């Protein structure tokens, strides 16, 4: 799947644009129910979107305009903008997993400030 229109100028580097969105509302909610740690959770399915020719608007691959529930720039993560390659066969973790939570990764990081880049 190409992630930018064929007619678009490709004379220079083209990022894959669009991103993904979660669509928890509407007639057909896009989530499945999952039993996790004894409770039922909603797992939302991310859907691929593309930039519309109208600035700030995104559309589905079928051309449906997605309404933005919040004002401001669309900041959907872009890492699901292209179909993911197959995941290689992995190796399961062994033993207790540490490093998650308030004592884990990211817990001692000192910020360098907010805003800017």
């Amino acid at each position, binding site marked *: 799947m190409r992630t930018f229109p064929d007619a678009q100028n490709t*004379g*220079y*580097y*083209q*990022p*894959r*644009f669009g991103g993904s969105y*979660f669509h928890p509302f509407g007639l057909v909610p896009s989530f499945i129910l999952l039993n996790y740690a004894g409770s039922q*959770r*909603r797992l*939302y399915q991310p859907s691929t979107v593309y*930039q519309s020719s109208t*600035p700030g608007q995104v559309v589905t691959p079928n051309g449906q305009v997605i309404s933005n529930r919040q004002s401001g*720039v669309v*900041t959907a*993560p*872009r*890492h699901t903008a*292209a179909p*993911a*390659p*197959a*995941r*290689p066969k*992995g*190796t*399961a*973790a*062994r*033993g*207790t*997993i*540490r*490093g*998650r939570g308030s*004592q*884990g*990764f*990211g*817990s*001692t*990081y*000192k*910020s*360098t*400030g907010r*805003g*800017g*880049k």
Partner: protein
Amino acid sequence: MRPIKIIRRPHWQRHIRENAYQADVLSDAKQKYWVESLPQPFAIQFDTQEESAIADATESLWEMCVEFLDWFFTEETAGDVDQRLAQLKIPAAYWQAIKNSWEREDPVEDLSLCSRFDFALTEAGDIKLLEINGETPLLGAETIYQWNWYADYMRNHQKSAAPLPSNATQFNDYWEKVAGQWRRINEAYNLKKTGISFLVDESLEEDLEMAMQLIQILHDEVDESIYTQIVYLRELLDDQGELVQRGLGLDEEGYFIDHINERIPLLWKMYDWSDLENDMAQSGSTEAFSQRLAVGDMKVIEPLWKQVLSNKGAMALMWEQFQTSSYGQYLLATYFETDISMGSTELAVGMHVRKPLLGMEGVGISIETGVGELEKRDNFGYGEEGFIIQEYVELAQAFGYHYMLGSWAVDGEAAGVILRGDTSRVTGRHCLIIPHIISDDGLYIPE
């Protein structure tokens, strides 16, 4: 080297949104991160001799880094290496792992993707190394966008009030060189078999943008069927506070674990080794983690040996080693703050810059006059590990901005440059990205 006026292109923000990662911040006129958000946009023009000099300095300094690391990890008398590692405040539990990371060759060495040197370019034409961004070199997306700006300008705006010289080029091989290094990494690590996980801090948009830029290069230029995934440092929550994806973990054998509890064979990270080490101390996992790293079957980009290069204490050791060599022309006098030698004392009583051993984006840096501070950045908690003092050098200025040059080194070769300006003498997070061109036009007075 001279500043030149350029136009603010009509629809410049749209062009950024359609052609850049880091698009939100680059296109935000309020943040003044990209030069077209200024009332008078400008670029910097270098001539071809200056371009060659920057490339020579970059490649020469990379050779120096390799020589330095060979010296750093060579035990001439017992305890030498440990003493140096202690001087950089690297925790002892990781000493063996870090030594192995530099020495490892079998089955394959611990490969780096890229590094970025920050240079001061003086009015006198000197190139001076300010610091080495060895571990977490951001600005890749900005480097590529400035090429897109250049291509768009040359194609569509040469009839404007401020055309670029018709023979203008740009020193920007970042895409091609990074693609080349991805190919080497793919060949050595067999990415089709392992995939690659990109670790980003979920609260920092720039980490994700940088990761996505690198994924695009990997997929476009090497193999689009290589599996990639984003791994978050803590956890990713949706706007309702619900968990979307668990964060990075570590299993009992010291392997990084992803959100579905599988081991991560190859991790690219935008997070310092020193922070990972501190985090693991906090969670009681230092032993498992350091032993796994010493074995080296879990690959990380940038590799553990880069922790030495990105530590500002390395700048003091480099000065000690190379000040009288041919590399010395690019170095600034630098000492540990605790050094009481003649050279250090002379520097301390005059104008100098004080920098924490760790830290980035200018945090904790102050310009000292010997009798007090001239300028100072917030330290955000950095500096407990100690400081270096470095000779002060005035950055070049244009349109009210002091600017420095980031020069990319990939596999020992110069790979292009990116300029950052700041109204402060200390370049920080809220800086200005300034594009550049290369041309000899207009720089010589005709005879």
